[in-house]
């Protein structure tokens, strides 16, 4: 089952019926906002797909379906503002409960369902450079929604099938695109750890799985940075994604400046463009 079908299954019936006949191949996100028309994000632009305004109950039903009516079981994810089910990441927005009650939502006003995709062949142009640098550090860069995870998934699959032993801590289960069952193909030499944070998970994989390369989706916190340092210190390669258009933009953010100055990453792949029109530019990084 592809990501589009999985996302449709989470929608209220009125919207699901509307979209079942539609071609979802170009849809990047489904967005539901309370008292607004639901929209699809296609090539960076939102288009309404139903005249029926979204109700708060619709949003609650989506969350109930996605969490199996068990928000307490996904409280850790909700604290981060999202919920991941079968690889479909649902960003949640609304009025938060006081933090001491577990970080849940008093009212939910918007949901953003990101459709996971497998795009075979997109990494062909950058693979030689990645292989050459597989013992070093490579960053995949783009602004949010730019296709970092999709590119990372394809890079992992290609490198792994090429014989590189890769370990991945898939915190949001977006790379595998499932909750542990059959998901996207991540290659025949990939070991996958689900159910824990990427920083702790990567260190655990480093100790237990003897990887040649560790892939991390979104290096975004000091903990992630510390994990990257430990991994690099053990002579294991790192393939990671980060939110930035290019290395110059990274330099403007303290955490990423520190990351770049560590000298761990020597190659960056900048993702540009939208929809199916993506370009990948290689850039050597200097400390």
């Amino acid at each position, binding site marked *: 089952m592809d990501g589009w079908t999985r996302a449709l299954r989470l929608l209220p019936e009125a919207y699901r019926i509307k979209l079942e006949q539609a071609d979802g191949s170009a849809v990047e996100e489904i967005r539901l906002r309370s008292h607004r028309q639901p929209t699809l994000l296609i090539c960076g632009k939102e288009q309404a797909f139903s005249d029926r305004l979204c109700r708060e109950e619709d949003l609650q*039903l*989506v969350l*109930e*379906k996605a969490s199996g009516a068990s*928000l307490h079981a996904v409280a850790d994810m909700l604290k981060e503002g999202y919920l991941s089910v079968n690889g479909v990441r649902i960003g949640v927005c609304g009025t938060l*409960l006081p933090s001491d*009650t*577990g970080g849940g939502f008093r009212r939910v006003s918007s949901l953003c369902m990101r459709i996971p995709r497998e795009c075979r062949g997109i990494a062909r142009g950058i693979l030689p450079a990645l292989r050459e640098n597989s013992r070093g550090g490579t960053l995949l860069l783009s602004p949010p929604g730019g296709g970092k995870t999709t590119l990372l998934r394809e890079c992992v699959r290609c490198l792994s099938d090429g014989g590189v032993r890769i370990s991945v801590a898939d915190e949001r289960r977006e790379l595998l695109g499932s909750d542990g069952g059959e998901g996207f193909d991540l290659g025949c030499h990939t070991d996958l750890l689900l159910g824990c944070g990427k920083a702790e998970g990567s260190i655990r994989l480093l100790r237990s799985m003897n990887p040649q390369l560790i892939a991390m989706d979104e290096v975004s916190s000091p903990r992630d940075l510390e994990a990257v340092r430990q991994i690099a210190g053990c002579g294991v390669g790192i393939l990671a994604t980060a939110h930035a258009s290019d290395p110059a933009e990274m330099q403007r953010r303290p955490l990423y400046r520190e990351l770049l100055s560590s000298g761990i990453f020597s190659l960056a792949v900048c993702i540009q463009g939208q929809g199916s029109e993506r370009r990948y530019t290689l850039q050597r990084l200097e400390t």
Partner: protein
Amino acid sequence: MKLSGALLILLGSLLTGRQYALSRRRELRSLTALCAALERMERELSARALPLPELIALLARETAAPATAFFTLLYERLSSLGERSFRALWQDAAQLALSMLSSRERDAFCELGAALGRYPLEQQTAAIRRCRDRLTARRDALAHSLKDDLRLGWGLSASLGFLLWILLI
């Protein structure tokens, strides 16, 4: 003819008494089973924070009737989650599987469906405890008065039967 009619009336009255006794005992057994199921539910949620589908499947397997019937029915209906709220599914299952409860206790049990899965764990377990306390109070009162109630029920139905018999003969 008169005699056999009177005997039938007497028999009917005694059967009514028996039915009353059975329904009281069934209610007591149901309340006991539900209280045990709610206690298990609270324990599993507090200790393991199990997702509700997993918890409901567990309770469907490991509780006594009629709790097992309720949780089995609810588990089957979880497939329509997303179309209908968990609260509505819980209420439907309670109406169907717990008809032996009095409406007050059933309403208290139905209310619990609104709290489960939607709030932080502490609030959920508190709601379970509240519901269990109400069912336990009813169960204890029922157990306490069961013998007297049964005696009264049998006595009344038998007296009614004899009265009709006397009137007819």
